[in-house]
Structure formats: structure tokens, C-alpha cells
């Protein structure tokens, strides 16, 4: 079954604005990860947040995790045209061990940043 579900499915903003994408999941997790996929390319790992963390920052990225609501959000501040891509959340729900990269992905949010 699909685990991570992103919302919205598509987001269109102007350069300089902030972009917020949400992800909901169904089972207990070890960690949640966000990836970016540029058109026609593979995924690029952005950030990993563990189940015992609530917030994490990396450059212009801010990720929050609410395990009680089984949800996460990715905030991109001061967006740029180069941020245009699809963004996926993925959950590592292998309880008590290492997933060896067996992640469950959602369908992604398509972000378009207009210059």
C-alpha cells in the first residue's frame, strides 16, 4: 500500500516565495526522508529526519515531523527557479533495524517556481 502521500500534488509559485509541501504516512517509521527529482533525472537525497526528531534544517530547507499525526512538511524558503522539480517523501518503516534502503515513496509534489 502507498505510504507517503504528498500534498499538494502540484504547487506553482513565484521566485522568492516560500514553498510548503506536506506528507502523510500510515505506519510507524524509523525515519522520513525527502528527495528531489528534476525532470528526466534520478532522485537526489535532500534531508533525513529521524522518528525522535521534530525539526531539521539544511540550508533553505526546513523539515518538520509530527509522529502523532503521522505527517511531515518540507519548507523551501526564498525559492528559486532552479528549485523547480518533483519532491518526494519516503518513509523507512523497517521497525527495529536497518531498512537497507527499502523506502516507501509517495507520488510526489510537482513544484514550479516562476522567475
Amino acid at each position, binding site marked *: 500500500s502507498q505510504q507517503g502521500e504528498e500534498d499538494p500534488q502540484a504547487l506553482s509559485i513565484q521566485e522568492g516565495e516560500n514553498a510548503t509541501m506536506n506528507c502523510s504516512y500510515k505506519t510507524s517509521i524509523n525515519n522520513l526522508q525527502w528527495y528531489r527529482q528534476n525532470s528526466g*533525472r*534520478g532522485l537526489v537525497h535532500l534531508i533525513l529526519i529521524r522518528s525522535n526528531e521534530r525539526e531539521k534544517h539544511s540550508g533553505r530547507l526546513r523539515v518538520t515531523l509530527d509522529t502523532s499525526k503521522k505527517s511531515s512538511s518540507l519548507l523551501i524558503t526564498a525559492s528559486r527557479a532552479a528549485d523547480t522539480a518533483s519532491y518526494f517523501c519516503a518513509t523507512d518503516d523497517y521497525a527495529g533495524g*536497518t531498512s*537497507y534502503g527499502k523506502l516507501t*515513496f509517495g507520488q510526489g509534489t510537482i513544484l514550479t517556481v516562476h522567475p
Partner: protein
Amino acid sequence: DTAVSQTPKYLVTQMGNDKSIKCEQNLGHDTMYWYKQDSKKFLKIMFSYNNKELIINETVPNRFSPKSPDKAHLNLHINSLELGDSAVYFCASSQRRTGRLGTFGSGTRLTVV
């Protein structure tokens, strides 16, 4: 030099054919994966190898057979191709202990006609 390279980039073939996709990584990672991305962009793991040992084998038709001759290579062979096999197939590699997918290849777009 490309870290994870897969070939071919595009593959168009007829139903019933057998085809292979190759993947190589030069990062020294110990784990490699095949993921399938369907037309709705939904990405799902198919296989994972750690040091040439199969560690993840999801519910995939047995027409799909991965082969890892060494830890730097993971190939995917598909027998008797069907229309529903049309998708983008991504190879990826990582270090097992990190629990994250380190590096993806650029994908192979398979179209079965």
C-alpha cells in the same frame, strides 16, 4: 565521471522480447537497488543487493531477474516483456549503514509496444 551509470537510457521493444538494463557504480557503495517509477511517478523498490547478496526482493514477477556479478554492478534482466512493464527503471546505490538512498542513476525509460 558519472557515479551511478545505467544503460541504455531509452529502450523501446516489442512485447515478448527479453531485454537487459545494466548499472554500474564507482562510489564504493556496498548496496545497490532497482526501483521502478510508473507513469504516475510512483516509485517502488524492486530489488536490493548488499555485497552481491540479494536482501530485498519485493513482489515482482519472476520475469524480472537481477544479477550482481560484483558489488559495483547490478543488472536487471526482463523476460517476455509485457505492456505493463513500460516505466522508468532507476538504479541506485548507498552504504547500507546510512539507511538512505545515496545516489541514483538517471534512469532507463522502457517502452514496450
